[in-house]
């Protein structure tokens, strides 16, 4: 469905992504993990057209996405969420989920002013789709919440609204940038379940960036590990986390002067998938020279 072929991207002298290639089949859930600064979000920005790759190509369902404007890429069927929420803050939840459907509207602004029957039918359809997408999250965003401005929502509800918004674009491939950031363990479990349902019931293919290893372990069909913009490993979760190169990227080499206890605790978190987040910058940053 999605294929990255030898993608390179540099910012000035910084090589952010080096010769990155991977593929996504329809109906897969694939996680991209890696220490902070590994280029995970850059990959998302490249796929969604925020950045253009220096070389290499990005193919979606056979067509190249390279050089397309972000809105044209949404038309092709790729939508994303943002790591630092970018909702339409002063608009209501419902409006937030209606705007991403605007690009499918086949009426001119004149017929929308005169409320032609064709326009009204599309508007009704938009409302149905919005409610359908919001109902993925149970009653949390329904009822009176529909008409509340996003400003008054809790952080977790904002994340849910953003996921509903991405789904409402009508995309087939969703890129979720840290869907569980800022959520407590219970909410994380809930969102894990929802991501799985998005694939099973909604039919979406999902590429996600995540730091919470228990979430990654639970839902990923495959995991791609990035480090310094290169693909370090790819495969099933259990294989990838036992890959010596991956452990080294996250935790540094054994010869480093790290306390054995801290290393063991962190490794435990990585492998067992407990709720301890893998330390990216704190531990890894210093040890890798």
């Amino acid at each position, binding site marked *: 469905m999605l294929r990255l072929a030898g993608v390179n991207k540099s910012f000035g002298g910084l090589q952010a992504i080096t010769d990155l290639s991977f593929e996504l089949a329809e109906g897969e859930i694939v996680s991209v993990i890696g220490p*902070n*600064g590994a280029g*995970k979000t850059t990959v998302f920005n490249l796929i*969604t057209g*925020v950045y253009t790759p220096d070389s290499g190509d990005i193919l979606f369902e056979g067509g190249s996405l390279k050089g397309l*404007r*972000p*809105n044209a890429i949404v*038309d092709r069927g790729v*939508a*994303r969420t*943002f*790591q630092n929420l*970018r909702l*339409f*803050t*002063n*608009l*209501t939840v*419902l*409006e937030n989920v*209606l*705007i*991403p459907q*605007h*690009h499918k*509207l086949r*009426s001119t*602004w004149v017929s*929308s*002013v*005169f409320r032609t029957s064709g*326009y*009204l039918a599309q*508007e*009704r359809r*938009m*409302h*149905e789709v919005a*409610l359908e997408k919001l109902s993925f999250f149970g009653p*949390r965003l*329904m*009822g*009176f919440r*529909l*008409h509340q401005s996003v400003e008054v929502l809790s952080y977790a509800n904002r994340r849910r609204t953003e996921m509903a*918004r991405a789904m409402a*674009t009508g995309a087939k491939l969703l890129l979720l940038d*840290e869907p569980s*950031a*800022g*959520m*407590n*363990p*219970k909410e994380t479990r809930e969102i894990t379940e929802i991501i799985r349902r998005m694939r099973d019931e909604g039919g979406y293919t999902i590429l996600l*960036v995540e*730091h919470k290893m228990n979430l990654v372990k639970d839902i990923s069909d495959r995991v791609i590990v990035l480090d310094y913009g290169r693909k370090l490993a790819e495969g099933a979760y259990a294989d990838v986390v036992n890959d010596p190169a991956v452990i080294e990227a996250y935790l540094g080499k054994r010869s480093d002067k790290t306390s054995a206890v801290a290393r063991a605790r962190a490794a435990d978190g990585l492998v067992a998938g407990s709720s301890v*987040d893998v330390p*990216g*910058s704190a531990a890894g940053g210093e040890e890798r020279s």
Partner: protein
Amino acid sequence: MSARPGDAGGNGAGARGYRPHYLAHRVRNSLLTLGGLAVLLVVLLLVDGGASVKLKQVFALFAIWGIATVSLNLVNGVTGILSLGHHGFMLIGGYVTGLLVLPTATRDNLARSARSELSDFAMGLSVENWFRALGLDSLTTPETLWARFLVAVLIGGLMAALFGVVVGFPSLRLRGDYLAIVTFAFGEAIRLLASTPLMSSFTNGALGFAGVPSDIGKSVWWTFGFLAVTVFVMARLKYSSYGRALQGIREDEIASEAMGVNTAYHKVLAFAISAFFAGVAGGLWVSWVGTARLDLFLFFLTFYFLVAISVGGTGSITGVLLGTALVVWVRQYGDPLEQTYALSTWAVAAGLVLLAVAALAFFLRRVRRIKPDLGPVVYVPGALGLVAALVGLLGQGMPALQATWQGFGMRAITLALLLITIMILRPVGIMGRREFTWAWLFRERLDEPTEEERAQDAWLSNPALSGRAGAEREDDEVDA
């Protein structure tokens, strides 16, 4: 105006919460709207039939400026692009309309005048001539000026819209202040270009041309008719999918693009629609004044509109109209402010204004439940006002206060003070982003939960109720 955004498509959640009994509420709202329109009609009838010519002119001016502010609001308030070039669009619409409806007698006079720089070609541009050529002689009489005016104002609006598209293009690459400067430069460039020899064969340079018929521009019915059309289009547009897309651009341009909104197209569209109505307002404004002159289209005009928008509430059509009414009122009825009075009178007047501000601040703090009730915004103007009023009242015999002072420019100062006061007490403007709707008036809010919903929501969001102790929240991870 009774439309609520949520009403447009029958939404399935309409059964719970404050959920209007649709039929009953719709009937009530329709009746109230009809009643409101009837009241407006009666007011307009009274104004139109009344003795005061001035009142009639003020009403017409309110409608004309209302068209301008509501159209500027589409770009500034709804799309969130600060545009300062509205007077440029109005100038285009104004000159085109003025030239096209100029009566034949005036044209002949101008043609004979030695000071006229208007070319023969420009003098030949007349809707009257076109109608005659088409054999529509019945539409060339003085009684059917409206037909010629409609054609002219439409052409003026379209010309302005064309320029709106041109100005829209920089908006694709520029943002915020930079774009504001470009639009400002455009507005000024249009005015200066119109005064150059290059364009003076159409505009008659700095002299302009007089004799534009005022029948339409000073008619309460015509101007309010145009205003009604403008408000209809703008309100329908705002509460359509297009309006939502434009508001999305205002809220977060990057996100709207990532959600598939073609931001380039929509920004240019907003500029074009806004410029069209600005052109219409310009045509009416030239007709109201009776003259097409360059000094009618100074940046000051846009400044007044911006004040109206900020005071009324950015983005709210009803708020913007309220702001326009305030601005027009101060401007047209501000004459007494500019007269000569004794200093003691000025002191009393200033004191009363300050006391009113203090009272308003006190009231707002009470409404917003801000403690203590008496903050510095209350007692500073209150004390100053009290002192000024007392000095003015008690010191009437004092020779120092016997001197007189003429309030040159007090109108503009009053407007500025009005703006400052509102920006301090209510930064979002009187109406904020809200529209005046019947549901708003009766405090019927769809975004407040019913008892049942409140219980459900508490259960969902309280971990103790949903059987999990302790709600440890991880901090937001930071990624580069």
